[in-house]
C-alpha cells in the first residue's frame, strides 16, 4: 500500500511535519528546510527516509511506529536523529496527535518533527534560572582560563563578587592582583601545579576586590584537556566564604585563648598544690616530731623549724600572689611603651650591678621604637632578662647584652641575647620557664623570674622563646 505513497511537499505552515492523506505522503517545507533540503534534491518517500535520513539506530522503531499509526491508528512519540544535507545529525522529537491550530482534512494523518533544541531550550532557561539563583545565593563565581587564546573569562557573578563592572575584562597577565598579598604565592603555586601537572585544587585563600577589600574564598579548579590530553586551560569556581571564615577564625582565636588560659590555670593549680604541699608536709613532720619528743627543750627547739617553714610558706604565697596579679592585671589599660624609655628605667635601677660586673649593654630599637603594652610588664620583663644575663655571666668574660627590636610576620619582636654561661637546652629546656626551677649553682637563684616573665608575656597573648648554648650564651625572643 505504501509503495503508492507519492511524495509531495506541503508548504502551508512553518512546522516540520508529514502528512498522510489517501495513501500519499507529504513533507512540509519546514521539515525539508530544517534539514537543508528542498523538494528538488531529494526523493520524498518512506524508504528514502529510512535508508538515508533517519539514524539507523532509530530507523526500526520509527518504521514500526509509522505502520502502527497507519494501520491501527496508534499514536506515538519518539526522539530520533535525522541527517541533514551537510551530513550532520539533528535531534528531533517525533509526535502524532498534536493539537492543531489549522484545519485537518478527514482521513489525513500527521506526524510532527520538532527539533529537540526548542524543547531543551525551555529546560535550559529553567536550569539557567536555578543556576543563577544558586550562584547568587551561594556567592559563587566561575571562571575559565584559556591557555591557547591566552585569555581569562569570568561570569557576571565573579565580577559582582570581585566588585568589577559588568563589562570588565579580567587580566590574565596581571591575575595576581586578584589575590591578597599574603596568598599571592599560594595562588601562583596552586595554578602552576594545575597547569603543569593537571592537579585539581580545592583551597581557601584571600582575594582582593577592585575596591581593595580582602575577603576569604574557597577556590576550586581543574584542568581542561584537549583530545590529545594536553592541558589547554583551567576551569574553576570560587565561593565567597568570608563571613563563615571570619567566624571560624574568630572562634579559633577564642579557642586558642581559652586553651592557653586553661593551660596556665592548670599549671597554676599544679604549682599551688606542689609548692604548698612541700611546706604542709614539713609542718606535718614537725608536728609528728613534737609529739614524739618528750622533753620540753626538744619540743621548743622545733619552734625554729616552724618559723623557717612559716617564712618559706610566706615566700611561696607571695610568689603565687604575684602570678595571680599578672592574670588580673591584664585588664589594665595599655599605653604606648617606648622601648628606649623602658630600658633606661631598668638600667638606672640596676646601675650598681652593671658597674660592679662591668656589663656592656647595647640596644637598637630603630626598627620598632614603641608598642602598646602595660608599662610595668615591659619593665619587669626587661629587668628579669637583663639581671639574669648578668647573674649567669660567664666567669671568663664581662657580660655583653644585646637588645634589639624588629618585626616578624607583622608582629613586633624584642630580642635579648647575652654571652653568658648558657643553659643546657636538652636537659633543662622543658623546665626553663617553670616555677622554682634553677639550673646553676647560684645561691641567689630562686627560680621565679623567668616563670613570671613568661606569665606576663602570655597573659598579654605574646610568646617567649629561647635559644641557648652552654658557655656561649642565651638568646630570648619575645613576640608581642
Amino acid at each position, binding site marked *: 500500500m505504501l509503495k503508492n505513497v507519492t511524495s509531495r511537499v506541503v508548504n502551508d505552515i512553518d512546522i516540520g511535519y508529514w502528512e498522510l492523506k489517501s495513501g500519499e505522503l507529504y513533507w512540509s517545507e519546514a521539515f525539508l528546510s530544517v534539514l537543508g533540503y528542498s523538494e528538488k534534491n531529494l526523493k520524498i518517500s518512506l524508504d528514502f527516509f529510512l535508508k538515508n535520513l533517519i539514524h539507523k539506530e532509530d530507523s526500526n522503531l520509527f518504521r514500526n511506529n509509522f505502520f502502527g499509526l497507519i494501520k491501527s491508528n496508534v499514536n506515538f512519540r519518539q526522539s530520533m536523529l535525522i541527517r541533514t544535507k551537510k551530513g550532520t545529525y539533528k535531534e528531533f522529537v517525533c509526535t502524532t496527535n498534536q493539537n492543531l491550530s489549522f484545519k485537518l482534512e478527514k482521513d489525513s494523518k500527521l506526524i510532527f518533527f520538532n527539533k529537540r533544541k526548542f524543547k531543551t531550550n525551555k529546560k535550559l532557561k529553567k536550569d539557567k534560572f536555578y543556576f543563577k539563583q544558586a550562584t547568587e545565593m551561594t556567592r559563587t563565581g566561575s571562571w575559565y582560563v584559556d591557555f591557547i587564546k591566552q585569555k581569562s573569562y569570568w561570569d557576571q557573578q565573579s565580577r559582582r563578587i570581585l566588585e568589577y563592572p559588568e563589562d570588565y575584562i579580567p587580566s590574565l597577565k596581571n591575575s595576581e592582583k586578584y589575590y591578597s598579598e599574603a596568598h599571592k604565592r599560594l595562588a601562583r603555586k596552586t595554578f602552576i601545579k594545575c597547569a603543569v601537572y593537571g592537579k585539581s585544587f580545592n583551597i581557601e585563600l584571600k582575594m582582593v576586590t577592585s575596591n581593595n577589600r580582602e575577603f576569604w574564598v574557597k577556590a576550586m579548579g581543574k584542568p581542561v584537556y584537549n583530545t590529545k590530553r594536553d592541558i589547554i586551560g583551567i576551569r574553576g569556581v570560587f565561593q565567597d566564604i568570608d563571613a563563615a571564615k571570619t567566624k571560624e577564625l574568630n572562634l579559633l582565636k577564642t579557642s586558642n585563648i581559652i586553651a592557653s588560659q586553661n593551660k596556665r590555670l592548670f599549671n597554676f593549680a599544679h604549682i599551688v598544690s606542689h609548692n604548698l604541699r612541700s611546706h604542709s*608536709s614539713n609542718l*606535718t*613532720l614537725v608536728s609528728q*616530731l613534737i609529739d614524739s619528743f618528750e622533753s620540753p627543750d626538744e619540743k621548743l627547739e622545733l619552734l625554729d623549724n616552724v618559723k623557717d617553714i612559716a617564712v618559706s610558706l610566706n615566700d611561696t604565697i607571695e610568689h603565687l600572689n604575684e602570678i595571680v596579679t599578672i592574670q588580673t592585671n591584664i585588664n589594665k589599660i595599655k599605653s604606648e611603651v617606648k622601648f628606649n624609655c623602658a630600658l633606661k628605667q631598668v638600667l638606672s635601677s640596676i646601675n650598681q650591678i652593671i658597674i660592679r660586673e662591668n656589663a656592656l649593654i647595647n640596644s637598637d630599637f630603630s626598627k620598632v621604637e614603641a608598642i602598646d603594652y602595660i608599662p610595668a610588664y615591659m619593665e619587669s620583663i626587661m629587668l628579669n632578662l637583663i639581671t639574669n644575663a648578668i647573674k649567669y655571666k660567664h666567669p671568663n668574660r664581662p657580660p655583653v647584652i644585646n637588645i634589639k627590636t624588629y618585626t616578624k610576620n607583622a608582629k613586633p619582636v624584642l630580642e635579648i641575647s647575652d654571652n653568658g654561661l648558657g643553659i643546657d637546652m636538652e636537659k633543662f629546656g622543658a623546665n626553663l620557664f617553670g616555677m622554682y626551677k*634553677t639550673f646553676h649553682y647560684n645561691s641567689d637563684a630562686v627560680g621565679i623570674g623567668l616563670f613570671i616573665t613568661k606569665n606576663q608575656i602570655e597573659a598579654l597573648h605574646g610568646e617567649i622563646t629561647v635559644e641557648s648554648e652552654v658557655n656561649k650564651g642565651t638568646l630570648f625572643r619575645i613576640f608581642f
Partner: protein
Amino acid sequence: MELSHKKTACIIDDDLIYISLVKKIIERKNLCNKLLVFNDGKQSINYFETLLDTIDSDAIPEIIFLDLNMPIMDGWEFIERFKKIKNKFSKSIELYVVSSSINPTDINRAKAFNEVNDYLKKPINIDALEKIFKYNNAS
C-alpha cells in the same frame, strides 16, 4: 638500737627544712651513725662515682632517700646514672624515692625502676622511717 650503729644513710634533697627535720629524727632515734646530705643529684652522683674506688665501706650508704624535684640534676637523672654503678658496690644499697609529688605518673614511673625499693610521699612518717632502717638491718 645497737644493731644500727654501723649504718650509713644518705639524703638527696634540696629542701633544707626537710633535711634538718629528718636529721633530727635520725639522731633522736639513733637510726644510723653516719648521714650524708646532698642538695641535688649531681653532687651526690659525683660522690657515688668516686666511691667506686674506695675501700672504706662506711662511706657507702646502705640507704638512700632521694627527692625528685631538684635543681641541676633531678631525681630521675640520678636514678639513671645510679643504675649503671649500683652493682659495682661492695654492699647492696636501698634506694627510696621521697617526694611531695602525689602525681600517679611520678609514682608509677619511680616504682617501675628495679633500683627503687619504694616511693614515699612527703610528709614522711616517723614510724615508716624507723621501719625502713630496722628492716634493712634485719636483712
